[in-house]
């Protein structure tokens, strides 16, 4: 098979399965189910390929056996201790053994332990700067309302906090604090003011969610457009009609 014919064949197959998966929008059908199982099989198969070629071969096998270049000179030493990981890894398969299934918790426990340790390790690096971003100057340092476009030294403009900026900064801080306090659960709120604050916190949350909705729509639509581009332009126009 020459390369051009292969391209056409491969693209046609891509269109075929895309249409097959889209057919579920009308109704669940046999064509869809066929494509679905094809999909599941390929994904599982590729995972099996990649697990060795992309991961274990270099992260585990090469480290355990050591590597040599073609002249026979060692480039990295062999660390046989990594072999221990094989039986530890196999313990996870004990989950199917009624008597020893507790052993499957050992590899899981190690993985979860590492996960927890890392969460604690990285906590400040993740959230410290975000808390810091909430600390903005909320009192204006000048009586002027907005940033002037001219007539003032740029250094002075940069050094000052104008009233409009102060208001924005205050709103930023207020939103952050009210959203945080919306999620306080152990305080019995009876005072009306705090209840009001809670409602406002919920409204502010909705603004955040609205933004997520908007950008999510953009993403999903882009993916549909990409599919359509593939079917109409890449396949029909470029491959079939050769234009």
């Amino acid at each position: 098979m020459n390369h051009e014919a292969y391209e056409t064949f491969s693209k046609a197959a891509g269109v075929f399965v895309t249409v097959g998966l889209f057919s579920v929008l009308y109704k669940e059908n046999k064509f869809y189910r066929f494509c679905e199982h094809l999909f599941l099989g390929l994904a599982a198969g590729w995972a099996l390929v990649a697990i060795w070629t992309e991961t274990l071969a270099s992260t585990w096998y090469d480290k355990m056996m050591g590597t040599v270049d073609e002249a026979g000179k060692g480039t990295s030493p062999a660390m046989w201790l990594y072999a221990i990981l094989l039986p530890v890894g196999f313990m996870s398969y004990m989950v199917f053994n009624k008597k020893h299934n507790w052993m499957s918790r050992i590899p899981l426990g190690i993985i979860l332990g590492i996960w927890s340790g890392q969460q604690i390790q990285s906590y400040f690096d993740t959230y410290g700067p975000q808390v810091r971003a909430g600390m903005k100057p909320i009192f204006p340092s000048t009586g002027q309302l907005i940033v002037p476009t001219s007539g003032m030294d740029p250094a002075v403009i940069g050094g000052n906090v104008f009233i409009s900026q102060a208001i924005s900064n205050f709103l930023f801080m207020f939103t952050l604090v009210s959203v945080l306090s919306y999620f306080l659960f152990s305080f019995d709120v009876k005072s009306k003011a705090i209840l009001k604050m809670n409602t406002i916190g919920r409204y502010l949350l909705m603004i955040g969610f609205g933004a997520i909705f908007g950008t999510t729509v953009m993403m999903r639509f882009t993916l549909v457009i990409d599919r359509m581009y593939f079917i109409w332009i890449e396949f029909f126009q470029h491959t079939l009609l050769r234009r």
Partner: protein
Amino acid sequence: MQHVKPGWWSIDSPGLGQQYWDTGWFALFFTFIFMAFIVVNIKRAQGSKELFIRRIPGLNAIDEAVGRATEMGKPILMVPGLSDPVNAIAVQAINICAYVTKTAAKFSNPILMCAYSASMYTLAQEVIRDVYQQEGVPERFDPDSVRFISDRQFAFAAGVSGIIHREQTAAAFFLGEFYAESLIFAETANSIGAIQVASSTEATQTPFFIAACDYVLIGDEFYAASAYLTREPVLVGSLIGQDWSKVFAITCILCGAVSQSMFSCSHARGVEAAVQASSGNADAKKKNLADLKESETHSFVFSKLFKTNDPPEDLKIDRQPNAAAAPAAATNAPGGSN
């Protein structure tokens, strides 16, 4: 070689602790105090004292939904999220489902539970059977009511939508980790008119639940709900610990904002003075501003506690050369440090 002396808020010896640089003790204290809050409160909760958690509005909706399903005589669907393998979120989700099942068992209402992974299926099976036993009606438990569907995201979505259509469920609970498929569930359940209570720990999926479901537990409310319903000391304690941490963070933000405002006022005055002193000379202005910046590095601002920085590259500590690794190091030494 440059020896930089950090401000008074740092640990004084620059030779100690790469990660203590600039934030000083504070970064480590910040995480530590949160951990301490959580552990202390778990211990408090494990003691005899009953700790307070406020009622979350959405929880009323649970009883309401079960009640309605009973009226209509149709089953209740529960999906405890797409966690593979079972993790702490899934466990909390199953705990809430157990509460729902308890209410349903009282009214002898049929339930349906869809599991995403094999491990979740095993756990759910055990928990639900337990609930029926505790309620004293083990004969009402149908092992087929807890089902394993698939562990592929969209295959699972397709399977659950099929069940919703076939069984015409009256109420649906989607609690736990949900991703892109959240909307597929919510849409399908809505199309048959089921009353829905939902929650996703993924903030990105919450708006879709809000748009399509009757009641949504947002963000943290999910954790709070499981603590509230199960009253398990570990969960209750850590929830209160988290509250204390939030109050601490809020206090930090408020202090920081005030301190920042004070700083910015004095900074603005400083800049104005520097500009005036230079009287139009660009070089003088540059120098004055640089001086101002230099003098400000030593003044204390609260937010400086939160700034992480590595020590400057030219800060050198005297060390013995490593004889064993020297030849290797010589071959790939970086060209000219600093």
